[in-house]
């Protein structure tokens, strides 16, 4: 009898051969040494395969939540981080020497429009007067990145292993983001156009009054300008800082936008993230994933495959289709007859009448509409609980600071007493730091540094009330001898007064602003003092 093929034997071993075939094969095996050996070997192979796959590789042994130690930082990574930090500080130092336009008059840190204004104005500065500087800077960055590349490769080549290391990742990210000389194509001018038959193979950074893409960008498109129009195709992400962004072509990646308006009439492969004044997805627009945005107002007429999450000061109008959930917090919500939501609808609005759901609208999941009554926050126990937690947190932070850095804490508290000087400095810091952050971030290589500055900035704003509270408490209680206990009591009293003051309508906002400026000024002043050599 003729022997069976290897594939038939493999099927039999997998239990996938028809019963009669299997029987015939079995009969054959009793007489054929060769086929028996083959079947045994195949069986052993299957076992080996199952066993090896079931012994999960260490990396796959458990998802992130179960292995808190995600990755260990070696000396190489630290060295790279140090290089990046040094680089960042060199850049920021270099920027300090530049003549940056005064920002204060258009900057009110407590209003969103003030911030967007600032951002746009800054980009205008680059578009009109700063491009030459940007170009020079990009060349410097290119050189530094080349050095980084060489140094980083040398460091990493010295270590055995696969590219799983955060250092390498960091390096790759930095390179991807910041190689104007050889990974990015930069264009600037009044108009930047990628014509219909043109293909840009790199990531394109376009700085212009009007950016128009009719052709194809194979990398990401990063734009700063008044108007950005994508009629062609962007294969990567679209990152847009523009007054008006209009996509009628295709963006295959994500859209990250900080624009006044975003109009999507074409196809988007993934999600939209960002903050825009007005978001409009018209009936031809299609979003492959979801939307996570803060907007002034939004109108969704097209199709969104996954969930939509919107925080808005205004209204959300839906007449298109949303594949999964719609979650919104805002003033009003309108679902027209053609609206379709695959998952749950969850809305937080001020008044129930602001939610209009047409009879023809379909909602696949649950409807959860809650009215946020602002006036009643004082009557809800949760409000007091939250306040108490915040308060306790601030006291704890103050106390820990006092324990670990008593000198610095007390000196900063005293510095609050210098009044107008601290206030002035504080206003400067409050307005200047975001500006510096944008300037650092715009150069891309400074992005990590910028994020670190942001973290420090937010922490300093949080700490501001502690310095001011402590100062206020001390002034009121006037302890003859300031022990740590007195200091804590002072902080408690001061913070309590500040917290209560902040609830006064209208005046409260002003008090908060004053407290932040005073505290920030004192903090900055003390940091400056501490950095000076002791005399």
């Amino acid at each position, binding site marked *: 009898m003729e022997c069976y093929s290897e594939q038939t034997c493999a099927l039999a071993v997998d239990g996938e051969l028809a019963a009669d075939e299997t029987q015939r094969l079995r009969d054959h095996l009793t007489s054929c040494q060769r086929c028996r050996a083959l079947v045994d070997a195949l069986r052993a192979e299957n076992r080996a395969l199952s066993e090896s796959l079931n012994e999960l*590789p260490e*990396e796959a042994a458990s998802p992130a939540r179960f292995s808190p130690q995600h990755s260990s930082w070696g000396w190489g990574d630290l060295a790279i981080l140090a290089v990046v930090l040094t680089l960042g500080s060199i850049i920021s130092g270099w920027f300090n020497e530049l003549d940056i336009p005064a920002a204060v008059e258009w900057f009110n840190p407590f209003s969103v429009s003030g911030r967007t204004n600032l951002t746009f104005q800054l980009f205008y500065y680059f578009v009109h007067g700063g491009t030459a500087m940007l170009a020079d800077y990009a060349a410097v960055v290119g050189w530094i990145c080349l050095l980084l590349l060489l140094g980083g490769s040398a460091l990493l080549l010295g270590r055995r292993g696969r590219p799983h290391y955060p250092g390498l990742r960091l390096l790759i990210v930095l390179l991807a983001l910041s190689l104007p000389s050889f990974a990015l194509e930069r264009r600037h001018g009044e108009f930047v156009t990628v014509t219909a038959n043109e293909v840009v193979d790199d990531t394109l950074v376009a700085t212009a009054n009007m950016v128009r893409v009719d052709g194809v960008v194979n990398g990401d498109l990063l734009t700063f300008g008044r108007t950005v129009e994508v009629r062609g195709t962007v294969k990567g992400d679209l990152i847009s800082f523009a007054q008006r962004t209009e996509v009628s072509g295709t963006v295959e990646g994500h859209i990250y936008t900080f624009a006044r308006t975003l109009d999507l009439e074409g196809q988007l492969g993934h999600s939209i993230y960002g903050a825009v004044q007005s978001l409009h997805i018209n009936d031809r627009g299609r979003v492959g994933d979801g939307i996570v945005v803060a907007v002034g107002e939004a109108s969704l007429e097209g199709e969104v495959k996954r969930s939509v999450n919107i925080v808005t000061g205004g209204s959300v109008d839906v007449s298109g289709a949303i594949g999964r959930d719609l979650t919104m917090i805002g003033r009003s919500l309108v679902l027209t007859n053609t609206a379709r939501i695959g998952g749950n609808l969850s809305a937080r609005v001020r008044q129930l009448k602001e939610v209009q759901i047409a009879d023809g609208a379909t909602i696949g999941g649950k409807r959860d509409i809650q009215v946020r009554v602002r006036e009643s926050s004082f009557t809800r126990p949760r409000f007091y609980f939250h306040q108490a937690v915040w308060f306790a947190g601030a006291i704890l932070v103050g106390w820990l600071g006092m324990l670990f850095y008593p000198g610095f804490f007390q000196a900063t508290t005293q510095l609050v007493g210098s009044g107008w000087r601290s206030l002035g400095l504080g206003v400067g810091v409050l307005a200047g730091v975001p500006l510096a952050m944008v300037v650092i971030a715009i150069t891309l290589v400074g992005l990590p540094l910028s994020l670190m500055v942001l973290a420090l900035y937010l922490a300093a704003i949080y700490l501001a009330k502690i310095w001011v509270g402590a100062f206020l408490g001390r002034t009121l209680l006037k302890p003859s001898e300031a022990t740590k206990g007195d200091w804590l009591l002072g902080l408690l009293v001061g913070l309590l007064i500040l917290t209560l003051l902040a609830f006064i309508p209208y005046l409260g906002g002003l008090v908060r602003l004053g407290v932040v400026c005073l505290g920030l000024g004192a903090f900055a002043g003390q940091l400056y003092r501490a950095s000076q050599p002791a005399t």
Partner: protein
Amino acid sequence: MDAKRNMAKAPEPREGGTRQMEGMELESVIECARGHDAEALGEIYRRYVRRVFGLCRYMLNSRESAEDATSEVFLKMQRSIDTYDRSTPFLRWLLRVAGNQCIDALRRQQRGRRAIVEAEDGAAVIEVPSSETSPLGAVISKEERADLRDATARLPENYRVPLVLRYYSELSYEEIAQQLDVERNNVATLIFRGKQELRRRLRDRSK
């Protein structure tokens, strides 16, 4: 992003509850989970998350997407545990859900391109000429197992996915064919070729 957030929403095993559930028979845990009992769902998560994550990790190319897929699987499990009919073992059912999730993810990643390419010779041809390479040895050491696993993980997707579904999820050819939306004969060919490719790669490596 969605999946990341969902991950946070996935049932968290609570201390006290887990201890109660720990010794319980799977049957009763599933019964409780059907009533959307958070502790039972958490217990199922605790028992099977590694297996599910393992499958996702083999099938998808990055750890992040595997984590996303894992959390999606457990969310789906919560929603569809009512449809589990006990005709198959629970783990197998769960791995089938996970397999589907991963295949969807692969298809999404490839933006419309068919994730699993059918064997070129078409479904009708089941017999392919025997390879010259012989099956892998019976007893292999721990290092060799790691090599084998590594080589499997690096196989092209159209070989890797059916192999993982067969030898990790232990699905039948028919089930794999359903999941991948291809002919059963095609699955047989892909698995057979996948193993040949594995042998070839391991042999090249050991040279």
